[in-house]
């Protein structure tokens, strides 16, 4: 029975459900206790012990139905040869898959870790002693051949691990522009986000602590305790007033950066009003605010809405210049405080007007400006990319190719935000090398002094400059 469970667990893992060896042991134990009295009870037993997340339940149901299909018989005595071939198939499958990964993208060793684990776990589990109930499982069938389905198993993280050209190519060939999240992707990203949130939360707590500290405000304390005869019952501290940082995000939803945008949208969805005030916009040719939608809609619906082109027309090419101008015109005045602005996009302007003056004005209003691009630095100059120009107005321009990088960058940003929440601090820390303008020398008539030239000299022969240049040096004098 352990073998069946082991293989079932492997199938689950292929489907993206994370099952630890300990949990499969639990499952075996549970089956030993609960017995194999009926299909639904076995299903319940397995589900209780193996699945530890709501989002994984549909995947489990699917795998269960397909793995234990009811038209085969006699599972108790599995043919060893058959079993071996299945094993080999599994291992081969892993190998094949790993090879596939290697050829597809050479720069990513992370992909293979999971597969390596599986074979090892398998062996560990096979080492268990046989249980008595082995022969009793009349209703549990194993469909060995159906197992090949795993080659087509969805690989949630793949889109984000690949470089943009690969993604673009893949999506261009067989997917629509902004594909709504599959449950696996959602789970995957939810995890990244939630782990990030845990780390960020510490910063928030620290900020709150900072808020509650402060020196004694003597005058206010005395005023407050006037009615107590100046005995300081109530203290008044000089608190550092801190407010939630404000964030404005501009996402390019055009085709070339859609995968980064998707992650960002999810991130925003989670962050919305939890840690900070976020206002989010999407654009390609026109600009639209999606803050209320983020608040009210599930992320999948929102993506579908965007995908259908209900908010902005997706067939347009992105026009950064027009977007910045309209942002400046319509929204900049309404921004409270000094928000940090994140722009996600590749800066490919399709040869439209650059309008960098608008970006400059936005920059003046913003406390901090970060540009995230999926492209590598060395192709920024090529084609219609204006990133060099736009980048000169930003505090930072960063390349974010996959989920990990993106989440790290955003986390970085939060650190900065919470550390110097005070917007003046960002300015102070920006280390702008102050360009010392040479003081213009004025002549007697308040005009700039003319430049001296060999033919025309303004200096009088009695001046030091004239003497230095034309005069006879002292040692040559007679």
């Amino acid at each position, binding site marked *: 029975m352990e073998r069946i469970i082991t293989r079932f667990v492997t199938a689950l893992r292929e489907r993206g459900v*994370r099952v630890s060896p300990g949990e499969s042991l*639990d499952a075996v134990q549970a089956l030993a*206790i*609960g017995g194999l009295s009926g299909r639904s009870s076995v299903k*319940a037993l397995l589900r*209780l012990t193996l699945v*530890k*997340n*709501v989002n994984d339940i549909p995947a489990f149901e699917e795998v269960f139905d397909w793995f234990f299909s009811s038209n085969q018989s006699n599972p108790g005595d599995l043919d060893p040869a058959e079993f071996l071939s299945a094993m080999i198939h599994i291992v081969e499958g892993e190998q094949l898959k790993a090879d596939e990964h290697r050829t597809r993208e050479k720069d990513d060793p992370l992909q293979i870790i999971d597969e390596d684990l599986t074979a090892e776990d398998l062996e560990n589990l096979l080492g268990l002693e046989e249980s008595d109930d082995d022969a009793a499982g009349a209703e549990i069938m194993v469909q060995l051949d159906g197992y090949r389905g795993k080659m087509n198993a969805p690989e949630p993280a793949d889109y984000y691990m690949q470089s943009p050209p690969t993604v673009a190519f893949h999506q261009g060939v067989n997917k629509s522009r902004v594909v709504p999240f599959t449950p696996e992707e959602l789970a995957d990203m939810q995890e990244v986000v*939630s782990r990030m949130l845990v780390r960020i939360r510490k910063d928030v707590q620290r900020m709150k602590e900072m808020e509650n500290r402060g020196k004694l405000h003597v005058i206010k304390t005395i005023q407050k305790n006037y009615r107590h005869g100046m005995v300081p019952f109530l203290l008044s501290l000089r608190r550092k007033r801190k407010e939630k940082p404000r964030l404005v995000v501009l996402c390019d939803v055009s085709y070339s950066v859609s995968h980064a945008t998707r992650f960002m949208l999810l991130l925003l969805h989670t962050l919305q009003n939890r840690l900070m005030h976020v206002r989010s916009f999407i654009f390609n040719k026109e600009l639209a605010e999606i803050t209320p939608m983020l608040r009210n809609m599930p992320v999948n619906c929102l993506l579908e809405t965007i995908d259908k082109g209900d908010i902005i027309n997706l067939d347009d090419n992105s026009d950064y210049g027009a977007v910045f101008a309209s942002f400046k015109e319509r929204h900049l005045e309404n921004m409270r405080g000094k928000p940090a602005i994140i722009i996600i996009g590749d800066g490919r302007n399709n040869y439209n007007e650059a309008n960098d003056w608008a970006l400059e004005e936005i920059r003046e209003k913003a406390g901090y400006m970060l540009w995230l691009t999926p492209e590598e630095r060395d192709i920024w100059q090529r084609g219609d990319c204006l990133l060099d120009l736009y980048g000169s107005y930003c505090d930072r321009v960063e390349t974010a190719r996959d989920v990990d990088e993106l989440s790290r960058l955003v986390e970085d940003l939060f650190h900065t935000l919470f550390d110097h929440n005070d917007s003046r601090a960002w300015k102070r820390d920006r280390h702008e090398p102050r360009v010392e303008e040479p003081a213009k020398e004025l002549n007697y008539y308040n005009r700039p002094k003319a430049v001296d030239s060999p033919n025309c000299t303004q200096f009088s022969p009695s001046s030091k400059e004239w003497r230095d240049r034309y005069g006879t040096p002292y040692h040559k004098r007679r």
Partner: protein
Amino acid sequence: MITEQQVKELLRSGGYIADETIATAVFLALRMEKPILIEGPPGVGKTGLAKTLSTVLDFPMVRLQCYEGIDEGKALYDWEYGKQLLYTQLLRTQLDSYLSESTDLRAAVERLSAEESLFFSQNFLVQRPILRSFLSPKRSLLLIDEIDRSGDEFEALLLECLSDFQVSVPELGVIAAQHKPLAILTSNGTRMISDALRRRCLYLYIGYPEFDREVAIVRTKFPELCEGLSRQMVEFLRRVRELNLRKPPSVSETLDWAQVLSILHTKQLTPAVVANTVGVIAKHQADLKQVTELAVQMMG
């Protein structure tokens, strides 16, 4: 030994209609002595399950309500500093005579440290819920409610307690449970519980019940309500849940509504009845309108 079917019957006798998964979970938890982590939307009977279990199985219930900032002093144990101080004060004369035999300071300190365990004994230990349930004279039911409200630190604290059923007190050593309690953790899913904790538990997701089960729940709680009305009611609520409300009505709302209808002696659902009692089902301004509109649409 108890079986799944018996668990189901037991729960039914306590007024809790369980489906197969719930019954299996309880059965497994009893047999494997593993905690159950129950997740689900609010009001589907997560805490209710624990309460019913404690009455039907006759396990005394020890409840720990989690909140932000809960720590071991509130959940596991605490030292009773006041009592310790009081005892040292009261015992001062005894201590003086006891220590007067020793000639120098060093000997006195040694003597005193030999009796140190006196002051760090179970006598001065305040048992908080988890330890109390571990040390209770008979098997108890430990309900850790709304664990998603607590922090990560607290979750980490629970790991030892829930996997080995023991509490480590640095001054006393490890205190193992005398009877392993039936531990039930509930969560509303507002925060992801860490995988480490999930791994130690049986995971039970209780969603909104199926039609028949919900009708059965209403019928058991309010037998005076006629069959037709309860079916109509449940049908309507199922449609309401599909509406994408801000707070969809849950089983507890169903029961509230059933109570209201039985008090009003309603025989049949009409838009007017729904409009009058909508406050029981919908809990948001924006939801009220949607629900009444649906009622007109359905019963027109």
